[in-house]
């Protein structure tokens, strides 16, 4: 009896996609229902196996119940929606006012984002947090990208005997930085993907466009810090497009919190990620032809659905079973 009910509850749990606390609450309530229902049926004289089957049939299809539960529980408050869009609006403001070139303001903004993300992560990963995580890991990604030069020099020296290698201590520090960055992103991705892959996509949403922008700025100037030091307006020529893109991301994260249906949440994130990302790439790279635009869109689609593919491959839609509260 217990096995069949537990299998049913596990199937509900697999499709719930809610935070662990809410998930436990939902499963406990359903478990309590089954206990009482089966006890009543057995008291009426029904054999145990029959009572279990009857209770499960009367309850309805596990996936449908999980979907209804998700719709009932997943909608966040307006306050959560407001908090979730803040990092997007902060970055939009940095671009709209061109103050991203001020190292103090830039460090202040990203420092605040990192601290809030860390506090949120340690306090049970609330629903609004996912849109913050991508920005919180961005400084580490930028640092890793910008500090690659000594590694390239060393590789060139080892492969071709050209130039001079970077000092060993520098390489060791960089190796530690890369290892930490990869570990941090991988562990955050795995933790979040266990709950729902679309949350990982939401988390990664700003990264492709910021990546394109950073590469373009560094290609123009050779080094991002030079652009930060410079007050020349040529570094700000993409700022308006970037500001619009991040405002759109802010609206998307509000929709994500407020929409009940999971399918609509997925559609909103993927659509905005592809169309917004392609539009921003077109503004930055300029003369993108139709074929190139399609390629950019497909790359964005692949990037945003990697969490889904990973989840399907790694867990085969199975989640670790958790004991029910007695």
């Amino acid at each position, binding site marked *: 009896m217990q096995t069949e009910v537990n299998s049913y509850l596990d199937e509900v749990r697999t499709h719930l996609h809610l935070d662990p606390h809410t998930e436990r*609450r*939902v499963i*406990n*309530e*359903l478990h*309590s*229902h089954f*206990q*009482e*229902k089966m006890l*009543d049926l057995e008291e009426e004289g029904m054999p145990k196996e029959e009572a279990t089957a009857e209770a499960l049939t*009367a*309850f*309805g*299809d596990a996936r*449908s*119940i999980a979907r*209804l*539960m998700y*719709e*009932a*529980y997943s*909608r966040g408050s307006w306050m959560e929606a407001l908090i979730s869009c803040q990092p997007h609006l902060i970055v939009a403001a940095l671009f709209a006012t061109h103050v991203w070139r001020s190292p103090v303001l830039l460090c202040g903004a990203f420092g605040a984002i990192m601290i809030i993300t860390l506090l949120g992560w340690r306090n049970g990963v609330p629903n609004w947090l996912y849109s913050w995580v991508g920005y919180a890991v961005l400084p580490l990604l930028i640092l890793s990208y910008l500090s690659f030069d000594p590694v390239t020099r060393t590789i060139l020296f080892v492969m071709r005997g050209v130039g001079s290698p970077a000092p060993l201590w520098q390489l060791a520090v960089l190796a530690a930085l890369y290892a930490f960055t990869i570990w941090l992103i991988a562990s955050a991705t795995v933790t979040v993907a266990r709950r729902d892959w679309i949350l990982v996509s939401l988390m990664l949403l700003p990264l492709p466009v910021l990546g394109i922008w950073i590469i373009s700025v560094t290609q123009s100037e050779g080094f991002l810090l030079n652009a930060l030091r410079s007050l020349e307006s040529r570094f700000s020529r993409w700022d308006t497009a970037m500001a619009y893109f991040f405002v759109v991301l802010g609206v998307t994260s509000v929709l994500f919190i407020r929409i009940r249906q999971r399918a609509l949440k997925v559609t909103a994130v993927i659509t905005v990620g592809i169309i917004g990302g392609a539009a921003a790439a077109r503004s930055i790279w300029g003369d993108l032809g139709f074929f190139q635009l399609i390629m950019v869109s497909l790359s964005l689609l692949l990037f945003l659905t990697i969490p889904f593919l990973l989840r399907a491959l790694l867990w085969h839609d199975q989640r670790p079973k958790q004991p029910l*509260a*007695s």
Partner: protein
Amino acid sequence: MANSTPGYDSDLLRGNTDSLLLFLINEHGQTYGYRLIQEIEERSRGYFRFKEGTVYPALRKLENDGLIQGEWKRLPNGQERRYYTMTEVGRDFLRRKIVMWESFASAMALVMKPTES
């Protein structure tokens, strides 16, 4: 929420589930999901039949809207059960719903009464 049954249009029950749940919670002062399911079936003499699992999302939506309040309680046998009570907002909402339903039902009855010719 409703299962398709030959007796009525399931949309009709779906649209009135909130009122049924609120009415019963209000009457009991404090009750829980399984009891509500049993009572709807008993009171309607088996007329209202639906997938039992759909009651819990409906209760959650009422809780989200601030119409009811849920609270976990541990029973003497160690089992935990979530009890629901009405809020003041819920009572006002239910009062309005009952008035609306009575007016609607009597208007329907008046219109659908066969004319004497």
